[in-house]
């Protein structure tokens, strides 16, 4: 029985916690938004996946743009800057996945326990993730646009054309590309934070961003094919409805952002311009982000 009695305090090994009194941190210094942002930035930049996705996004964009520009450089009317946005279709997947991993990482790994015991209000964490992921995506997007421009140089110089980045609305297109890539990261973050699991989040966003516009366009083309001649009178309106819907999908909004001013948009769809395109994208981000915030606030996280 006595063997079970606990040893006296003197028996305790020399306290490893001893000597800590000298370095007590200042009291009353809790979390504020700036601190939570630096914490989220530290988390984001301390993962290999973040670096790998960023590098892959830049490299893939460079390669696709380079190939596209080289292929078109044989055309007599070759305009190098027309190939500037060719890498975007695939490049957008990078920031999207980056955002999804940032949004789901807390929950798939259990890190949320450490995070939400440090910041029990929870919502500042989500807001800080938006800021940190947005800022990081901005750097990646700038590098990606830079890579796209650099990829045009060989084809342009082979034809003796000099690249003028200040002309023909090119600055707007570059800003639009950057905005779109950042928006994809934030869309990924919002959907990831809502669904808390990467596979459903990737499936949902890929369908929304890549598959749905193709399916809709394909569907409307099939419906207006020769077999549906009797309803020919309805065709223009039907197609314009589908095209309008496509315009309000994220990829359609992207098209509004990166389209050179003055060029024609999707047939039958209203030309809304880059500002409305940005608003549409913002809506696509805010919808899942708000739902994620409600879920985070109202429910147990354990």
């Amino acid at each position, binding site marked *: *029985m006595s063997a*079970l*009695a*606990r*040893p006296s*305090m003197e028996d*305790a*090994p*020399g*306290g*490893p*916690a*001893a000597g*800590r*009194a000298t*370095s*007590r*941190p200042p*009291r*009353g*210094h*809790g*979390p504020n938004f700036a*601190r*939570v942002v*630096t*914490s*989220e930035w*530290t*988390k984001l930049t*301390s*993962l*290999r*996946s973040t670096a790998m996705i960023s590098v892959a996004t830049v490299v893939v964009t460079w390669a696709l743009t380079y190939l596209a520009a080289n292929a078109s450089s044989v055309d007599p009317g070759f305009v190098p800057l027309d190939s500037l946005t060719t890498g975007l279709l695939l490049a957008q997947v990078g920031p999207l996945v980056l955002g999804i991993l940032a949004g789901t*990482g807390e929950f798939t*790994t*259990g*890190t*949320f*326990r*450490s*995070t*939400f*015991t*440090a*910041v*029990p*209000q929870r919502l500042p964490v989500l807001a800080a993730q938006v800021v940190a992921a947005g800022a990081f995506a901005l750097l990646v997007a700038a590098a990606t646009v830079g890579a796209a421009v650099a990829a045009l140089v060989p084809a342009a110089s082979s034809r003796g054309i000099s690249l003028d980045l200040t002309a023909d609305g090119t600055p707007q297109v570059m800003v639009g590309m950057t905005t779109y890539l950042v928006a994809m990261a934030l869309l990924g973050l919002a959907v990831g934070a809502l669904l808390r699991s990467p596979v459903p989040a990737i499936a949902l966003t890929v369908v929304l961003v890549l598959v749905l516009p193709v399916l809709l366009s394909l569907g409307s083309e099939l419906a207006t094919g020769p077999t549906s001649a009797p309803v020919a009178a309805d065709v223009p309106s039907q197609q314009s409805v589908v095209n309008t819907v496509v315009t309000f999908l994220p990829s359609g909004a992207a098209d509004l952002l990166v389209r050179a001013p003055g060029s024609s948009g999707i047939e039958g769809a209203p030309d809304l311009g880059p500002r409305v395109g940005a608003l549409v994208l913002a809506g696509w981000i805010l919808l899942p982000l708000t739902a994620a915030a409600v879920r985070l606030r109202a429910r*147990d*996280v*354990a």
Partner: protein
Amino acid sequence: MIQVEALTKRYGPTTAVDELTFAARPGTVTGFLGPNGAGKSTTMRMIVGLERPTSGTATVGGRRYADLPAPLHAVGVMLDVRSVHPGRTAFRHLLAQARTHGISRSRVDEVIAITGLESVAGRRAGTYSLGMGQRLGIAGALLGDPETLILDEPVNGLDPDGVLWVRGLVRSLAAEGRTVFLSSHLMHELSLCADRVVIIGKGRLLADASVSELVQRSEHASTVRIRTTDPDLLTKVLVGLGAEVVPHDNGVLNVQGASVDDVGAAAARCGATVLELAADGGSLEDAYLHLTADAVQYRGGSTDGTTTDAPAGGAR
């Protein structure tokens, strides 16, 4: 100081924590004991605000956890080894936590040194053994130099050195006047490092007592076996003390309702020569098992796979 009052958590029809009330006081190591599934972790998660109580309150230092102005400085929490991104190094994980409170890098290095993780702090946490993960969890709990520590199964997965280290650590933290609240499913472990033990089963409070009280209680519940030259005389004396005595051959008496000390003293007083004196069973572990016998949710060897309080589907 942790105060839990009438804390209740229901998940649909299941009650995980049921009207639980107890306190963990400064300068004390309070053990939190119960079989697996008794509601220990749920209670701890409610104390730190990860889960909302269905009813009742839990406060730390008089405040709800969510109302603490600087949680890491008030409460150090280690709930689950899987609270770290496996792709992040221990240093970066702790640094990210520290930055939410503006805690310096040097303090991060300090807790890494305290927990003995210096040589592996630059390795990704996914490569850690269970014991290293526990040390990392404890490092995170110490980061803000908190007044209160909440540790869920801190010795789980540690090697013998690590177990001794944790015992020493929690004792020294309590000696500095801090509140230490740690869970275990092993009575033995808590009897070695806790001052008080809160025992729960099926979410209900079974006992809230000091370790020495529990030792006494378990001794009272035990059987003392004594062999003496004068069993008749001793039986009279012991019955007079209110004990139950069952005589056996060769002068052996089995005594219940008296401790070894009581029986020995009684024998000395009446002059009966003691040939043998021993307590049968009655260890702290037995007392604990006795207390929780009805409250074990996942009993080994159960073939029907239903818990005792599951509604009988076919009846009525």
